[in-house]
């Protein structure tokens, strides 16, 4: 049985277990992969993070390569996966290494009604990474909580960024 990716999110609060709690039931994920190369050598942190959920719901901290290996692995149990990337740079690295994903969620960087342009919230490097990944077929949308609607508009703006 292969892995089914239920949600991909970029969130720098990735070790913030509440993010996972808010989403895992809503998308029906039974494994949460946190992709943060800076914490992969710390099994203690991974174990503490796992404590946020009963053991039936797995949690793991991965590097990009470990994630790709995890995705390839064939398994007997159903694996509905939610992936939280540390930042856009790590997501870009994964896409460059062959990770294919049609949609990526980001939390609203400001109040929904106040939302402006990309350069008000993201650095030039981050915008470049977004544009690059869009050319690879990945769509981005803003959504903080499960019952918010998906907002693709800010990433579709054609005005010159930055």
């Amino acid at each position, binding site marked *: 049985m292969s892995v089914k990716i239920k949600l991909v999110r970029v969130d720098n609060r990735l*070790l*913030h*277990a*509440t993010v*996972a*709690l808010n989403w895992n*039931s*809503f*998308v*029906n994920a039974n494994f949460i992969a946190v992709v943060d190369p800076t914490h992969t050598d710390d099994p*203690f*942190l991974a*174990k*503490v*993070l*796992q*404590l*946020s*959920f*009963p053991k*039936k719901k797995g949690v793991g901290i991965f590097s990009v390569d470990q994630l790709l290996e995890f995705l390839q692995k064939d398994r007997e149990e159903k694996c*509905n996966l939610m992936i939280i990337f540390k930042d856009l740079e790590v997501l870009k690295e994964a896409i460059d290494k062959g990770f294919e994903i049609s949609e990526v969620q980001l939390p609203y960087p400001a109040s929904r009604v106040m939302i402006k342009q990309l350069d008000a919230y993201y650095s030039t490097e981050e915008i470049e990474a977004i544009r690059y990944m869009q050319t690879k077929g990945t769509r981005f949308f803003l959504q903080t909580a*499960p*019952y918010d609607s998906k907002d693709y508009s800010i990433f579709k703006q054609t005005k010159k960024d930055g």
Partner: protein
Amino acid sequence: MKLGKIFKEFIHVVQENPDYIIGLLNEKGRIVSCSLEEKINQEVAIHTNNPDQRIYKIVVSNYQYGYLWISGPNQAIDVVGKLLFDSLKTRIQYELNQKSAKEILSVDDKLIKEFLNDERSNYRQMEELMAKINFDRSLPRIPIYIINEEKFDKEEITGLKYKINDKNTIYSLLEPKYLLIYKSLPRKLGKSTTEYLNEFIQEMIEWGLSDCYYTVGSIQMDIDLYNFSYRNCLWLRENVLLKKDKPVYFEDQLFSYFTMNVPRTLTANVFDYYKKKTEQMDIEEFIQVVDQLYANDFSVKKTSERLFLHKNTLLYKIKRYEELFNLDIRGSFQGKMMIYSLANFLKSQSRKQVGEK
């Protein structure tokens, strides 16, 4: 929720790292559970300035569960402390959510059991159950019966409450393989009911209820008719060819439902002449062809695609039926109805159910 049991899991993890000690304090600062057993019952100053210690007030859903006390090396205590605190709060919230979902589901279960009770005797209990979940009985509802040949994962079905997030939509796992949802419909839809339900069912499939059969009964406002609408779903299961993840609607099968519920002696008399003629053909194939013609508005092109037949092959079969029964199937509305009624009559004589080989 058993906080002590959850905290023991935290203790086991922290005990693997001798740099840290964690304790659960009561509101007075007394240690009630700890990774270092000899510390239990000792008192800790809640407002400490000790650089090697952190104390976090555990408040979840406006309820205080005491304090989390952590002792460890100063350089990493903030990262580890916050992570432990966050994980503990999240876990408590998770367990509370599960408990609440299970409580609501237990009411859903009881209420649906009452709806499906053929001998409705306990109206009072039904009223009490409806009051418990603020069930708005003025809303129309439609039953969606989902069949999973493997069997549903009970815990996963509990999680469905978060996805549906509508107190007026209730559901119950009637048996390990059968899930019944009474989906509430908004008073103003803004689109067709089928369109609305197709979107809902598609969301269910994407959420995880895939590889299932879906039958949808009749819309009802009166709770006394919920049992009838559930039986519509069962009728579909028994009489219509179902495909995985493709909902079948009772309202699309009304003609078939009515014709099949006409007393058999009557239909047997009406179709006696035609039945004798069917001895010259493959009845199963005839039923399949007519079912698909009906489902595709008698379009030869669409039906041939569905049946994976060449258009001319299908036309040949239709012409054969027309000659055999002396009916105009392609041109006349009456001929179409006649052939469909005949197919239903023959079907009622050789019923097949889902999963039957």
